[in-house]
């Protein structure tokens, strides 16, 4: 996505979120106002709000990526979320509503008449919320970085500030409106491109084979790998080195490597294929195919000819 549109688009969504939150703002006076909006939220609005929670960064981006990588088995995750909502309705939401408690710790205390259980339940709620929020904030930061190149923490920071301000000011009423608004926004933002993608796919003759192909770079690309990497070369790789690799001095005359079926010795190659490693060995290695790391270059037969 073009970054000139990305910043105004993100800003627009943030401003709209704050405005919708302000629209729902009635200053919360009672506990009932704050937690359940005095039970004035209709089922449709509430359903939209809960579904807005469901369509989050983790569930949408995460499931799409998992299905792409691992196949349709990963569709069990959304099924699990939905079945989880049903179990939640049966064994938590309905008894909670009948008991008249507002929060899970309230409910635990009401049922078990124990202050310690209440504290434990509170700790669990905070802990689960923490585990849930962490990937969401990470997703927000990642998305904003991909869209605009902003620093990693900014997306999470914006989300945290906007949500905290909305909840603190308006309580459940504001946040329900915000979530319902975001549900319709996200649904539109997902369905419209999906519709056009399906149309484009159909217009292309509904090709299926492209999904079977292994992924390939169609043009030249710099790839940075921050972990150990084994390179297996099926064809001999010609490497020309001028300078010093791993403390060995290499002179100018270029050499072609003799045909070796596999030049990989299985040794873990050090990272940073393109960028020079941090203690710069001043090695200018030019490669035909996958960019070699200094150690792979040394293991290639030709460069062993030390002067």
């Amino acid at each position, binding site marked *: 996505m073009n970054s000139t549109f990305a910043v105004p688009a993100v800003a627009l969504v943030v401003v709209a979120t704050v405005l919708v939150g302000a629209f729902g703002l009635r200053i919360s006076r009672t506990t009932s106002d704050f937690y359940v909006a005095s039970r004035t939220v209709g089922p449709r609005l509430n359903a939209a709000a809960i579904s807005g929670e469901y369509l989050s960064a983790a569930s949408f981006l995460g499931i799409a990526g998992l299905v792409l990588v691992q196949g349709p088995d990963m569709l069990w995750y*959304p099924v699990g979320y939905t079945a989880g909502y049903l179990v939640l309705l049966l064994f938590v939401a309905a008894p909670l509503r*009948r008991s008249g408690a507002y929060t899970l710790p309230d409910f635990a205390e009401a049922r078990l008449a124990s202050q310690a259980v209440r504290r434990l339940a509170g700790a669990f709620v905070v802990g689960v919320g923490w585990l849930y929020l962490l990937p969401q904030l990470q997703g927000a930061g990642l998305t904003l970085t991909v869209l605009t190149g902003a620093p990693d923490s900014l997306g999470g920071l914006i989300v945290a500030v906007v949500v905290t301000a909305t909840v603190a000011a308006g309580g459940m009423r504001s946040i329900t409106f915000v979530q319902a608004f975001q549900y319709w926004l996200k649904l539109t933002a997902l369905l419209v491109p999906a519709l056009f993608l399906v149309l484009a796919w159909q217009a292309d003759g509904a090709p299926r084979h492209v999904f079977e192909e292994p992924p390939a770079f169609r043009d030249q690309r710099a790839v940075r790998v921050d972990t150990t990497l084994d390179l297996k070369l099926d064809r001999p790789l010609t490497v020309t080195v001028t300078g010093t690799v791993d403390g060995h001095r290499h002179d100018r005359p270029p050499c072609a490597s003799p045909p070796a079926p596999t030049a990989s010795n299985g040794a873990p190659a050090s990272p940073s294929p393109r960028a020079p490693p941090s203690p710069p060995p001043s090695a200018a290695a030019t490669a035909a195919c996958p960019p070699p790391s200094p150690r792979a270059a040394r293991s290639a037969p030709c460069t062993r000819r030390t002067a």
Partner: protein
Amino acid sequence: MRTQLRAALAVFAVLVLLVGPLPLLFAAMPDARRLEWAVLGFGLYAPLVLLARWYVRRAERNERDLVRLVEDR
């Protein structure tokens, strides 16, 4: 309260019986990729919604019954 618990357990049992055999079914037919997409991606949600709807109706009827019982007395 007992009727509410009974309704909840009944819905839960239906849920388990509905979803539980699915992995076995998919394991028995490893070639049925399209079926897996259809069931997991789309088909399974309708019965879940219907189950939830039935439970909510049932629970609200139980509540009304209780209120009527209390008021008649």
